[in-house]
């Protein structure tokens, strides 16, 4: 007996595979995670029922999922846009913190009516996040310094800066506990009527729409795609790769910065150290899963939000550790990479018996 595995590079990716990849990825990850659930003596079917069906069928769960989606989609776009241009912004978390700091500061220190204050704070947060991301963008554009390293390391700087500020200059309202003062009502997103989700959700949707139009309908978007696909050819045609690189980081960082302020203004009310449960890092698999379009980033963000929310429900109902959600997330990433492999190669597994002289397939052709 002889088992042979044949790998062949695909010439074409069949349509069902191209579109099905995200679905298979998610299903595969959940299937693998059920191993962990079984090991914890939890029935996976019931557990996933709790996690997804129950979360999605009650208003509270839906509202929570929508709320969680906001920072994930905005930071997801912050990764997605540079990814279109072939760059990795892995520092969305830091840009989110910078946006939260500046947005909160404006909310606390500027007195204006809500209609002016919130846009101003959103703008400030966007500028802060954009500039923070602009540093790695500029370094990459100008001196070809690896943006993965700089954007990642600047994240830790940003987190420490925020941590210092809420213990020092910006501390207030809570005695000795680190944290800023509570934002005034004029700086807090009002809830959207009926849906009862804070208005930052609309900001997220707007950002998705703006990104979709930018990428698919404008010259800048054309240039971003071209630079992302072949920067040398783009340069040869007179596009400035440096400008594209800087642009995607500035705009991406602005989205992440806005995500930071949205989270403070719409959910938490005051800036605390370590307020983000790694939204900016979860943004990376969000962007990978949704890399074919801004709307897909939104879907991916909603899925990861559902994992967050459903995961905590699971924790409460079955007493499984919250880390399980991390496991599922990690498996999604692994499955995604695996799916890429299958997209590129077709795999044939053939089992044939050892000493058969005639070829297994086709006509024997042993006429000679």
């Amino acid at each position: 007996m002889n088992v042979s595995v044949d790998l062949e590079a695909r010439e074409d990716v069949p349509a069902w595979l191209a579109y099905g990849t995200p679905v298979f990825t998610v299903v595969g990850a959940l299937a693998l995670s059920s191993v962990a659930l079984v090991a914890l003596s939890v029935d996976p079917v019931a557990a996933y029922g709790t996690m997804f069906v129950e979360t999605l069928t009650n208003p509270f769960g839906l509202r929570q999922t929508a709320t969680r989606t906001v920072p994930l989609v905005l930071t997801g776009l912050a990764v997605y846009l540079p990814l279109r241009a072939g760059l990795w912004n892995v520092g969305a978390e830091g840009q989110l913190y910078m946006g939260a700091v500046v947005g909160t500061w404006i909310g606390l220190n500027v007195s204006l009516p809500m209609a002016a204050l919130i846009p101003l704070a959103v703008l400030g947060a966007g500028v802060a996040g954009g500039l923070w991301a602009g540093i790695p963008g500029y370094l990459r554009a100008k001196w070809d310094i690896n943006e993965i390293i700089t954007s990642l390391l600047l994240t830790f700087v940003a987190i420490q800066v925020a941590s210092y500020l809420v213990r020092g200059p910006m501390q207030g309202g809570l005695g000795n506990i680190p944290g800023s003062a509570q934002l005034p009502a004029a700086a807090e997103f009002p809830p959207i009527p009926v849906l009862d989700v804070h208005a930052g959700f609309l900001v997220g949707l707007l950002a998705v729409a703006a990104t979709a139009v930018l990428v698919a309908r404008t010259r800048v978007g054309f240039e971003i795609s071209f630079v992302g696909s072949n920067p040398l050819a783009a340069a040869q045609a007179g596009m400035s790769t440096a400008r594209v690189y800087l642009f995607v980081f500035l705009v991406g960082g602005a989205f992440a910065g806005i995500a930071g302020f949205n989270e403070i203004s719409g959910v938490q009310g005051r800036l605390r150290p370590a307020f983000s449960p790694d939204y900016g890092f979860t943004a990376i698999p969000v962007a990978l899963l949704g890399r074919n379009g801004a709307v897909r980033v939104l879907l991916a963000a909603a899925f990861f939000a559902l994992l967050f929310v459903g995961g905590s429900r699971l924790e409460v109902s079955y007493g499984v550790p919250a880390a399980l959600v991390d496991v599922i997330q990690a498996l999604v990433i692994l499955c995604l990479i695996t799916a890429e492999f299958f997209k590129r190669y077709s795999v044939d597994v053939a089992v044939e018996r050892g000493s058969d002289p005639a070829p297994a397939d086709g006509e024997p052709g042993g006429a000679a």
Partner: protein
Amino acid sequence: MDEDPFLRMSGVRKEFPGVVANDDVDFSVRRGEIHGLLGENGAGKSTLMKVLYGLYDADGGSVHLGGERLDLDSPQDAIDRGIGMVHQHFKLIPRLSVAENVVLGEREPAGPFRDRGADTDTDDADSWLPEAVRTNRLARALAERFTIGLDASAGEIEALADDYGFDVDVRAPVGDLDVGERQRVEILKALYRDVDLLILDEPTAVLTPAEAERLFETLRALADRGISIIFITHKLTEATAITDRVTVLREGETVGTVETGSVDQAELARMMVGREVLFSLDKDRVEPGEPVLEASGLRAEDDRGIEALSGIDLSVRAGEIVGIAGVSGNGQRELAEVLAGVRDPTAGSIAVGGRDLTGEPTRAFVDGGVSFVPEDRHEYGCAAELSVMHNAALKELRDDRFDDGPFLDYDELARYAEEIVDEFDVRGVHDVREVPAGDLSGGNLQKLILGRELVRDPDLLVAHQPTRGVDVGAIEFLREAILDQRAEGTGTVLISEDLDELFDLSDRLLVIYEGEIVHETTPEAADRERVGMRMTGGAVGDGGAESGADADGESADRAMTDGGSADGDGGEGEAAGPGADRSSRGDSR
């Protein structure tokens, strides 16, 4: 068919989804012959050879080698049966030495475990292991599996190389070798494995003419020793120069096998493309107009910061094609990039259509009427994963005809792309928005790129190797397109290593050597031998002083000095062109 061919492939069929790559192909090779396998891109040459080399399973047909039926599952099987293949892209590890690369993959155990058998006289110092261990079968099996001996064989490889007359320093790291030498290492790898049949996949694609000539010598020597060689090519000149017989494939089928001596190139070309191919293009007289390019004193550095252009003056007039001949690596790439505005010159000035563009960004060149066909269509010419539409519209993207308010008018882009696809006969595009440029064959992709550059009616076209690596049919089309554009008043700088192309298309011909223009002539007045010599920096033989007169004094001196050293030094002589090479060989033997 032959009475007793060494290799016989009959009725080979290989299908891919939607394509029959080989349809009932018959192919046979005699012992000790050089057999050309000729065909356009996509004719099925590579597929056939991959079947032979065990990379593909045929869907039908049979392969016999030396009278025995072959049934290969992998290249390892092929190697075991004495079939070797030299791929177009070398499979070498730059940091390892030549000898290490040659033995790599042979699963030689490390030195101490090696059972030297008969030749115990070779350096035995490292076999400190007792004889019993070395000959123990279990120990040997383990050693073969878990140790690797890259060290011991340098002497052996050297002997092998000497035996075949390869002068390669077997201890040098492969990374330090030039392309021609690396190819010899690949051949050496095959010889080390005792091949009887050697497949070379378009071996000259990466070589300079001189290196190619040297390769041919090597191949003839191998054939004289009884090794059969299959030489895959789509260049007719090579097929007629080196092979004994030629088999032509077209669209996956065998067109026929002929004795090379009995046919001429035109006949082979007809077999290849299935129709008459024009070899002499109709070149109408075009009265040159105003200068479109005026460049003077251009200096530029290559990517490593070493000066590659040392003061080039160049002027091209409307409706004129100026050919630049030279052996690759003499500054052509830098010249093309400087003229296209992609690379900043370190000195000198460039004006296009009377406008000084020195130091301007690439965009000013593109918008100022400069079109550029880069040497490497995949690296520079296109974004392979983006659609034909994206690639077709690349240069005219900023034109306001594509405005749709603040947005980009994608429908207009698609129409624009379709026009180029139609006009330039780009095949394999059913929907310009859907088909990625990378899915096009080399010739069609090149038509798309040239079309994109020409359809905008440029003042200046900089074309670097516009027909390299494409099939005969496409070459003809591309050359005619360039000539048509000349009639429209475009001035062209044509940089090529193909002398036929330069002689057919150019109005004036310049020779570049080590970053300087060393010779200027016209195709009518030119002497090929002399052009070949000038390309290699030589002013060899009788014409030394005389040929110095037609270039400026400084470069003539330089050319003569270089020529002198080339004569004196065998190592330098290798780098010489066909003409020089032939004469120096004559001297040394």
